[in-house]
């Protein structure tokens, strides 16, 4: 089978002969591409559990990158590790964040710790790579 694929070189380099370090993109390298990305928002108050359900339809379990932002700390976007407890903005403020990914859905749940309205924004990136 002949070679096939896609390569993009840096400016000034011939894409046909450029070494990997001089490429911006190569389909030979197992680069994780974004299959689906977007935003979601919900508002609640103390002890509410906000559930963000995204039906992705990818037919595999994708890697998920998620950033979360609270209206209490609008300048912070916190990366969500898969840890049950997360701090957001001020370290006194503890949110319980839970993320689950299946071959059909991405679900993020946030247990709020504030005693008044709090708007949670999420920015999600589901990668074209199975876990």
């Amino acid at each position, binding site marked *: 089978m002949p070679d096939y694929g896609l390569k993009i070189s840096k*400016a000034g380099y011939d894409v046909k002969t450029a070494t990997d370090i001089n490429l911006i993109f190569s389909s030979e390298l197992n680069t994780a591409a974004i299959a689906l990305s*977007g935003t979601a928002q919900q508002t609640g108050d103390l002890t509410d559990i906000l559930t963000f359900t995204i039906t992705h339809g990818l037919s595999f379990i994708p890697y998920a990158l998620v950033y979360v932002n609270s209206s209490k700390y609008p300048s912070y976007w916190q990366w969500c590790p898969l840890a049950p407890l997360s701090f957001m903005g001020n370290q006194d403020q503890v949110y319980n964040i839970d993320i689950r990914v299946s071959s059909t859905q991405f679900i993020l749940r946030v247990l709020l710790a504030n005693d008044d309205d709090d708007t949670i*924004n999420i920015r999600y990136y589901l990668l074209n790579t199975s876990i």
Partner: protein
Amino acid sequence: MIIFYNKKTGDIVGTVDGRKHSKDVLEKVWIGDKKEIGKKVVEWKRTGKERKREYTEKIRKVVGKDKSGNELSQEFIVKKEKTVRDYEPDCDQKEIMTDIESGKKRIFDYKIKNGKLIK
């Protein structure tokens, strides 16, 4: 962009990024409960116009030789121009959608009523 909104209140609950979406994404992707949440799809189309866009490129030029006769080069940044095709949102609220995509406006500051974005 695909915008998902609460059918009763019009509140926007989420989005999927992008100017064009595959058939799979349009059919399968959903945010929230299908019974409560509606969706509005705004894709982008070519305007048929072209425009000039400036960009910069780094180039390396030989500027002389050292004592051993090796060529010395220096990096320069040059301004160039290219012609690009114009695209626009395929809807009657082009300006708002363009501002949302560029980050000038926040999608969550809007609601959807009768298929339109309103404040």
